[in-house]
């Protein structure tokens, strides 16, 4: 039986002439659209609506030309914020402010989403084996990758079409709306190309996601550093984030940058196609080395096994966050420097931020960002238990003399401990690099670390959500991502969207004290920690009662 299957597969594949590398691609694209029928509209429509909401908030927040000029003036003096969001090119127009506020963030989101989508429809299929069924049909060698890249690009393009139409309908200006939407869509296409290449090099989908995430992170930091540090401004031209910001939507658009994005995306995709057609199905360009023939002695139970499985994934996140933290620390130092040399700004900050030291309030914002990143790591790690249950990995462990709770405690513990380490190291790196720049290494490193620790209880609550659902309703575990997305929305865009205090109180991060800078409050810390503990405990109790999901 087995012999027949493989013989048939090769036979059919060889009847496809190499001249038809894309044979069957349209069927594969339709299959991918069917698989993503919920994700695709969910991401694109939600984010398009969000950009319209941002655009419609400016008249309320900054109604007069003078107030907008003041804003631009303040921003020009703030390298840390400019680093992340890019410069503001036209503060007077609604479109200009919208582009400034959202282009970098949107490219970050679509860069990640599209590259994960590409991997989901390429390397993931090869890893799980569906690609063999596909390649066994009358399907060309490049068709699978072609379909994956197409669906990845469709995310950005659908968003672009909706956002451009909606913004134009609002009356912000057709050419600006086109440039804004197109530069995000084409920038995302560049990351589709990156993911397509990563899928050729990595053997697992996790590896390919990690590789494309790494490239996204590096290019983001390059443009952030270039934006924040005038002497390094050339760096922005190495990054799609720089290209997207410099397209200057709504401010005398530079259309040629869109061409640059398309060309780079095209080159990356073409390269990936070439590689895909040369290699074996299921193989990767990084050849598999022989590994250990015995497991290390410390791997004795499910918890040790989870650490063995998660350690390289965690290490990647830690290195990435520490690097970002270190860069932010340097930018923070120059930002504080600029502001403190400007009496008007000092007065303004004092009026806005109360008694806190300026550096402290920046610190809180940045460790808050890392706490969200750490929550993402934690959620993704708890979700490994779900994929173990839907494959037979969990069954093999459940049939050993181990309780289910013991089994689940493996990845749940790597999630909680790993996310805490991740947050702490990012805070430490941030504080230390700020400390080096300001001559107080020891003091600032500790301050950064403590600031990161203050954020932990909220991160724990977020990780507790999928842990609770694992016991109560495992099919809903991915809801952890929705909660995280909500926290990001409320935390980053809550003020600009005019969301009420009630909305911000739905995010555990909204209850944290703004320490350092303001009074430390222990009660919310304790309550959030208790909430997380109760969530995990209820999940564990429910875990003991339920069936293996089928």
């Amino acid at each position, binding site marked *: 039986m087995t*012999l027949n299957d493989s013989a048939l597969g090769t036979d059919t594949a060889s009847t496809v002439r190499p001249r038809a590398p894309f044979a069957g691609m349209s069927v594969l694209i339709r299959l991918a659209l069917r698989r993503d029928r919920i994700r695709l509209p969910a991401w694109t429509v939600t984010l398009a609506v969000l950009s319209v909401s941002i655009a419609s908030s400016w008249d309320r927040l900054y109604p007069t030309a003078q107030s907008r000029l003041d804003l631009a003036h303040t921003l020009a003096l703030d390298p840390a914020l400019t680093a992340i969001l890019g410069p503001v090119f036209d503060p007077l127009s609604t479109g200009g402010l919208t582009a400034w506020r959202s282009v970098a963030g949107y490219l970050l989101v679509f860069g990640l989403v599209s590259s994960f989508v590409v991997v989901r429809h390429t390397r993931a299929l090869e890893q799980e084996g569906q690609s063999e069924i596909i390649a066994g049909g009358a399907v060309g060698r490049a068709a699978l990758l072609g379909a994956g890249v197409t669906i990845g690009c469709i995310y950005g393009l659908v968003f672009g079409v909706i956002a451009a139409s909606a913004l134009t309908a609002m009356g912000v200006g057709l050419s600006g709306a086109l440039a804004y939407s197109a530069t995000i869509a084409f920038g995302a296409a560049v990351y589709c190309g990156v993911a397509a290449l990563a899928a050729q090099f990595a*053997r*697992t989908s996790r590896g390919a996601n990690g590789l494309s995430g790494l490239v996204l992170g590096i290019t983001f930091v390059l443009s952030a550093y270039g934006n924040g540090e005038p002497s390094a401004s050339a760096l922005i031209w190495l990054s799609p984030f720089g290209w997207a910001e410099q397209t200057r939507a709504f401010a005398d658009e530079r259309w040629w940058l869109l061409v640059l994005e398309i060309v780079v995306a095209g080159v990356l995709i073409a390269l990936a196609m070439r590689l895909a057609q040369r290699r074996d199905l299921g193989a990767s360009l990084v050849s598999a080395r022989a590994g*250990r023939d*015995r*497991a290390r002695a410390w*791997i004795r139970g499910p918890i040790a096994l989870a650490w063995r499985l998660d350690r390289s994934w965690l290490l990647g996140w830690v290195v990435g966050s520490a690097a970002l933290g270190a860069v932010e620390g340097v930018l923070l130092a120059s930002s504080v420097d600029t502001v403190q040399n400007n009496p008007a700004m000092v007065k303004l900050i004092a009026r806005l931020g109360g008694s806190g030291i300026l550096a402290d309030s920046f610190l809180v914002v940045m460790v808050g960002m890392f706490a969200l990143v750490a929550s993402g790591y934690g959620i993704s790690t708890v979700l490994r238990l779900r994929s173990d249950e839907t494959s037979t990995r969990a*069954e093999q462990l459940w*049939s050993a003399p181990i309780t289910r709770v013991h089994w689940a405690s493996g990845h749940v513990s790597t999630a909680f401990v790993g996310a805490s380490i991740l947050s702490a190291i990012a805070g430490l790196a941030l504080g230390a690099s700020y400390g080096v720049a300001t001559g107080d290494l020891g003091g600032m490193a500790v301050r950064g670390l403590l600031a990161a620790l203050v954020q932990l209880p909220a991160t724990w609550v977020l990780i507790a959500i999928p842990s609770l659902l694992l016991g109560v309703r495992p099919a809903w575990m991915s809801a952890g991502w929705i909660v995280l997305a909500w926290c990001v929305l409320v935390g980053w865009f809550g003020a600009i969207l005019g969301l009420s205090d009630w909305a911000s109180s739905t995010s555990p991060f909204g209850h944290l004290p703004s320490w350092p800078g303001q009074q430390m409050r222990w009660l919310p810390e304790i309550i959030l920690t208790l909430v997380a503990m109760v969530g995990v405990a209820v999940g564990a109790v429910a875990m003991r009662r339920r*069936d293996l999901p089928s």
Partner: protein
Amino acid sequence: MPDTVIEATSLAKSFGSAPALDGLNLTVRAGEVHGFLGPNGSGKTTTLRILLGMLRADSGEARLFGSDPWAEAVALHRRLVYVPGEVALWPALTGGETLDILGRLRGGVDGNRRVQLIERFDLDPTKKVSSYSKGNRQKVALIAALAADVELYLFDEPTDGLDPLMAEVFREETMLLRDAGRTVLLSSHVLSEVDAVCDRVSIVRAGRTVETGRLSDLRHLQRLAIVVQTAHELHGLEDIPGLHDIDYDGSILRCTVEAESLNDLMTHLSAAGIVSLESRPPTLEEMFLRYYNRAPA
């Protein structure tokens, strides 16, 4: 050790509105290799999962070594190993690491046995699981199970994905387990395998046990295939009850006959003068097809 290792009575289990088990009975005695036969979707895996305490039956009772598999899961699992039908492993680990980890979770690895089995199954333990074929992943799980020193071995379609040579190695290893007095439950739809190694079988269809017993006893209940040549022409074949699939060209008769009608047929044949006679017991395939083609009760 109790005489009965597995005792399942009238097990029922539904997923939503779809019934997976509908009154399944299964008895496995200590020291036997028991074949658990049924087509895909007949409830074999669901039964195994109930016996492992991964699912709870809606009704009926399951006993493993006399205990409740749900409540006593951990204690019972010390006495058994299980190989699922579709083996998924951790892609980042090597085969050798996986073997050790699975073994340690079950309480330890016998180093000599491990080396011996790796050699017999011709596995390269230094390769990453992500580069293994389905058959190689299957081998890892089988070696981990066979290396375990336990009382009960549960295999869910274990040779699916193995080449014929490796399937033969597995059969030999199963025989050795039986010789050592271990109990094996072998779920399968590979009939030759069950035929070769099992003492008793239970045949399951649509969540219900349709037959259970020694293979020889089951065959006894079945029809015999006959090819016979007689000196004189045969008449009145239609009058013999229990005679089926008649193909008669005036000289050679081919037919199948139910066991209880054999005597009638032979009397009839000898009256016509038997020139040559060939008979054989039905293959398991034929028995199997007969059960599956029967309309649902």
